[in-house]
């Protein structure tokens, strides 16, 4: 095998890999659910025993199941199947960690942790998703959430202000994700 053949073979296998990732991965549904759960986790931290909180404890896993089912059916019809387990694990992990981060913050009377905990955990969840999808766009969202966390801590924002900031970021993120996926379907690396 000469150098040109080796380069050509490597380029072709890389093309095949990217094509497979593109065809399997359209993260919008997972993103919407992850973002929704993260936002909800904020309310969970304030009122863990409220009916709303209990409602989301059950709806979160059901939502994750819906993602798994959706991914399974779509991939099956397209001819290439990915494992939906990664999405389920991320979504459930995100919900549990965000909830726990908030609770720990209040339990140890460090309300700052309760305010930045869920955003920090959501950032970690997005980062994991970015890795799975090999997507810079999702990684950017993760870094933006991390930046919000730093702002909340650095400027010692109140509970109301930090919620408004995180909610605003989620709104902008979802709009941007929805728009970019409509305009260009291939945000993958």
């Amino acid at each position, binding site marked *: 095998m000469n*150098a040109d053949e080796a380069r050509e073979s490597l380029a072709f*296998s890389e093309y*095949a890999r990217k*094509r*497979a*990732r593109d065809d399997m991965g359209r993260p919008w549904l997972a993103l919407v659910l992850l973002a929704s759960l993260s936002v909800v986790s904020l309310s969970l931290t304030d009122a863990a025993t409220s009916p709303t909180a209990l409602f989301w404890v059950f709806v979160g896993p059901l939502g994750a199941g819906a993602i798994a089912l959706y991914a399974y059916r779509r991939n099956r019809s397209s001819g290439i199947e*990915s494992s939906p387990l990664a999405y389920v694990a991320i979504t459930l992990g995100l919900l549990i960690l965000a909830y726990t981060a908030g609770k720990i913050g209040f339990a140890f009377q460090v309300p700052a942790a309760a305010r930045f905990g869920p955003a920090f955990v959501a950032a970690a969840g997005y980062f994991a998703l970015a890795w799975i999808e090999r997507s810079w766009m999702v990684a950017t969202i993760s870094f933006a959430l991390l930046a919000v966390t730093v702002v909340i801590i650095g400027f010692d924002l109140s509970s109301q202000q930090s919620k408004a900031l995180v909610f605003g970021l989620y709104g902008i993120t979802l709009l941007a994700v929805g728009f970019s996926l409509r305009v260009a379907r291939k945000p993958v690396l």
Partner: protein
Amino acid sequence: MTHPSSALDDTIHQRVRLGILAVLSESRRADFGYLQDVLEVTAGNLSQHLAILEDAGHVQITKAFEDKRSRTWVTVTRKGRAALATEVATMHALLDGIGSGQRP
């Protein structure tokens, strides 16, 4: 001292077979039609390549009836994954050797 190219696996360093393993390594499984579409090969050609990979234990082929039609699903085995990783690393090493002035 052996030449780096001797580490190349004859079974998979062919372009289409490398492509098959690349697609399968990213997914849980892919069907015959999908592979044919991505790799732009004829059905007969793809069948031959898949048979070679299956004989070598790099892929597993399963036929099933789904929605009243026959489907052929292909899955990469652990051995196939390892072989692909080794092959890609070997080719990179070869190219690095060429880049650093070693004779190919």
